[in-house]
């Protein structure tokens, strides 16, 4: 073994003066081909397990998937999710604003709210709301120790639906408040200072400058919460509200086709989750403006650029 050889690798590869002309190619490594093999095996196994497996009972699944009962349960799930998500996000915005406000009392109240909700399992929360009448027989609006302006029996207000919505939105309110707050904290201080220097109001600063940056960073976490919400709706079966999961449970308690009926529910949850993820990726694209890589063509002169509009 001579050091002479290792010092001159060109001796092995040929004339070194020609090396720079050789094209560059990435080698296809073994791991690359193996990954295809693994993928193919998993696909075949999954196909055998799901499609060819007679125990799965696809005909039953097919006959129930679009049945009136299942669809009406599905619609209830969607209704609760949409209403609770909307209310929960608004609540979360308010709580986050309070937690970031200049008033110590409001900050403390918001912090206690988040603390209690985070500590309480969603199931317990929904039961508490549903049985609120036991704690508070009437709901009234007014100052403490004075005659209320307005009073109703709690049981008139708390239906299965409203208990579900109140419980779920209180839940999302606490979790999304933390996500919003984290989003605000993630914005570089210089963005607020630049907005101040331009004379933008707080509202303009949030809607035009930092808001889009916040949405960009919180979208993945928020999408997570919304997807969780679809499935958390199944918690409301404890108070007898008939949503998707409760519906299939009622059905299989009669026809004993447990697995096919649960599969029906899972298929719909898959569809709903896919929709949520689609929304997520659109949001990410929209608010990734200026962050995602792209290639810009430099315009030749200023006056041609003046007329151009951006399309994306």
């Amino acid at each position, binding site marked *: 073994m001579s050091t002479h050889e290792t010092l001159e690798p060109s001796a092995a590869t040929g004339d070194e003066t020609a090396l720079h002309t050789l094209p560059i190619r990435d080698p296809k490594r073994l791991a690359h081909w193996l990954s295809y093999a693994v993928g193919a095996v998993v696909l075949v196994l999954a196909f055998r397990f799901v499609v060819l497996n007679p125990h799965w009972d696809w005909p039953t699944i097919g006959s129930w998937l679009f049945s009136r009962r299942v669809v009406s349960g599905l619609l209830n799930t969607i209704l609760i999710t949409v209403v609770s998500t909307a209310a929960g996000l608004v609540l979360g915005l308010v709580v986050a604003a309070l937690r970031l406000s200049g008033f110590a009392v409001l900050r403390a109240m918001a912090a206690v709210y988040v603390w209690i909700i985070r500590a309480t399992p969603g199931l317990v929360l929904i039961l508490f709301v549903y049985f609120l009448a036991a704690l508070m027989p009437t709901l009234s609006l007014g100052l403490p120790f004075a005659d209320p302006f307005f009073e109703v029996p709690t049981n008139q207000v708390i239906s299965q639906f409203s208990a579900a919505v109140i419980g779920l939105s209180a839940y999302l309110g606490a979790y999304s408040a933390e996500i919003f707050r984290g989003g605000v904290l993630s914005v570089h201080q210089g963005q607020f200072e630049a907005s101040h220097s331009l004379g933008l109001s707080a509202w303009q600063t949030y809607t035009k400058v930092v808001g889009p940056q916040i949405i960009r960073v919180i979208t993945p976490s928020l999408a997570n919460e919304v997807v969780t919400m679809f499935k958390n709706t199944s918690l409301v079966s404890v108070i007898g509200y008939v949503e998707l999961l409760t519906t299939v449970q009622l059905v299989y308690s009669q026809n004993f086709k447990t697995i096919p009926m649960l599969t029906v529910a899972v298929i719909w949850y898959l569809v709903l989750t896919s929709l949520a993820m689609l929304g997520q990726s659109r949001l990410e694209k929209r608010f990734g403006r200026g962050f995602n890589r792209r290639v*810009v063509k430099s315009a030749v002169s200023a006056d041609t650029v003046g007329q151009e509009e951006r399309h994306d």
Partner: protein
Amino acid sequence: MTEQPLLRLRDVEKRFGDFVALDGVSLTLRAGTVTCLVGPSGSGKSTLLRTVNLLERLDGGAVYLRGEMLGFTRSGDHRRPVPKKVARRQVVNFGMVFQSFNLIPQLTATENVALGPVEVLRVGRSEARHQAHELLTRVGLADRVDHYPAELSGGQQQRVAIARALAMKPSVLLFDEPTSALDAELVAEVLAVIKELAEEGFTMLIVTHELAFARDIADEVVMMEDGRIIESGPPQDILLNPTTERARRFFASVSH
């Protein structure tokens, strides 16, 4: 004939807790003049600019723009902060350029420059875009109007930031170390733009460590230390013949 100064600081004080960041700073800027603020790190230069621009609330003294006290209003035997709306109107008199540019990442160069005019000055969108293109052309960025900040070099970003400040038609431009975040070869392009603005007669207050640049464009150089002004005067006097030993040592340390 006594000319009213454009900007006047009288005994400005700023504390952070027990720490005195500005300790009775008085300074006068006449219209059309360039003042360079120099001094060691931590001497309170940024704090001074931020106080003028109402990013920090002063604890004593006052800042007057054309005779109007900024940020506060008299209320009997004391002063109280002005309403936010009034403060915003006052802030727009200043164009601030930051060391770290602070461009808005999701907006293109044009949109960054047009934002203030559209939202605050209520200029029509197409008019604002047109003005933005003119300003970007003026700072040498005619071919970068549709780029996002992340697609621009540091020097280009800082020139967009200067165009953005100009778009608000400010009375005074404030620069806080506009070239400190830039690589050496990008410094010149930004300084050239600032020099051009000086020649056009803009009133400017510039925090800088570029002493040669200060000597070149300043009408007055002000040196700060520990929250106080320790020297001020025409650049040749201050930079070449500083009276205090401290100033002499500072200039010796920066110019190497």
